[in-house]
């Protein structure tokens, strides 16, 4: 909160940038799409926390040309290319698949590549780093806490029967489309961190895994190939675990991929409360080797377990 009081706004109005602006506007007036060409103000949060830990954050302003289809990432890259090459942005795919360009745009965490300026309906677009992630530089933030929480929920399938050392007996699981649909939605997570930055609990609780990690806990819990059910619940059933979610729904509102982390968390909690049927049928492991000895062994093991 303190840092925002110290904000000092620098206006980048050097001659070079104005020249570029003029050149572009001249070009655009002669082109057929001139009616789409507008200029908007981009306010970018600037800090260099790694090189100078005492750096006072401030906002820089840039006038950028926008068209109907211009995204915030396009505008940021335009400012970086033609006005200030030192702007720090992280981006990669430009199509909401990699989850790199998450930032707070006009007060809400969004993907810059997935947010059209025309949809924002404001003349000034304010870009800040994602809240709840430590600063690195400008709009680039440190995801190590976030990924540590992700790792803490064991985001991988655990099934002792799947540990097959012999490659000739490589096997696959039988999984029905119905079983797949139970977790498929949650596996679309691109780990962009938007839900983590929107969550009110994460805002103060360092130990809370956050919506991303908890929804991934459900994704693996619901997966019929996974058999480590009780251990998964134990990991999240702590004083800073799943119970610190209060269904504020902000995570689902900002998710750019429709993962709906809030739904996953509540479903997982219903299992912890014993309301949902926690009897999960573990998928059968298919034997791809020519002989059926492995399958027979498995069946024998299952029979023994049942006994």
């Amino acid at each position, binding site marked *: 909160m303190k840092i925002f009081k110290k904000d000092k706004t620098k206006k980048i109005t050097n001659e070079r940038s104005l020249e570029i602006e003029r050149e572009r506007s001249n070009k655009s007036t002669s082109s057929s799409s001139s009616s789409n060409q507008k200029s908007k103000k981009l306010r970018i949060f600037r800090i260099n926390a790694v090189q100078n830990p005492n750096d006072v954050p401030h906002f820089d302003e840039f006038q950028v040309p926008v068209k109907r289809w211009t995204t915030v990432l396009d505008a940021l890259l335009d400012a970086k290319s033609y006005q200030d090459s030192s702007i720090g942005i992280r981006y990669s795919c430009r199509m909401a698949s990699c989850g790199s360009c998450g930032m707070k745009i006009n007060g809400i965490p969004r993907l810059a590549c997935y947010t059209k300026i025309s949809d924002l309906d404001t003349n000034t677009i304010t870009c800040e780093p994602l809240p*709840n992630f430590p600063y690195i530089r400008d709009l680039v933030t440190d995801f190590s806490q976030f990924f540590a929480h992700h790792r803490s929920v064991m985001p991988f399938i655990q099934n002792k029967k799947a540990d097959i050392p012999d490659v000739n007996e490589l096997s696959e699981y039988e999984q029905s489309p119905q079983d797949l649909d139970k977790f498929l939605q949650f596996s679309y997570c691109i780990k962009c961190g938007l839900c983590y930055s929107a969550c*009110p609990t994460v*805002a103060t609780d360092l130990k809370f895994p956050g919506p991303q990690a908890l929804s991934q806990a459900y994704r693996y819990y619901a997966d019929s190939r996974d058999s480590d059910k009780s251990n998964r619940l134990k990991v999240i059933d702590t004083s800073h675990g799943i119970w610190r979610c*209060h*269904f504020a729904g902000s995570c689902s509102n900002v998710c750019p991929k429709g993962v709906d982390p809030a739904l996953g968390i509540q479903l997982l*909690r219903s299992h912890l409360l014993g309301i949902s049927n926690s009897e999960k049928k573990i998928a059968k492991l298919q034997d791809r080797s020519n002989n059926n000895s492995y399958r027979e062994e498995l069946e024998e093991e299952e029979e023994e377990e049942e006994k």
Partner: protein
Amino acid sequence: MTSATSAKRIDDNNKNDRTNREGLRGWLNPLTYGWERVSYWFQRLTGIFLLVYFIGHVYETSSLVSGPDAWAAMLELTQTVGGHLFLILVIGASTLHTVNGIRLIFTQSGQGLGKPGRPDYPYDPTSVNNKQRSGLWIAFILAAVAMLYGANVLFSGE
């Protein structure tokens, strides 16, 4: 240094890094993220308010043991316009906290949130739906009705 140890070092160093955490600003921001965030805000606020009232109420009623005069003196505090307005707020807060709390027990048990499916553009989340939200709206309406009824009883004394 292997990448794994280097990653661990980063994790250890950053584990307690609170830089850029929103803090209480994150809690007290009810308007940016929709109705569920409003619910979160009200539930928390009314909860704290009611706990403070509960402690005060237990203290207030303890004056009974000191006899009729002490009780009358304590009661006088609430027999003012300010005292009545405070009690009306208590009525509203308790109704809202109760009804919204029941809604939250259902939602936090996975009820009324829809089922996981295959998300499609524009990716509207199924959990933040009007079905469960209506519980919050009902809570607001009932709180308003209870406050009106309470105001009528308190100010008319009947």
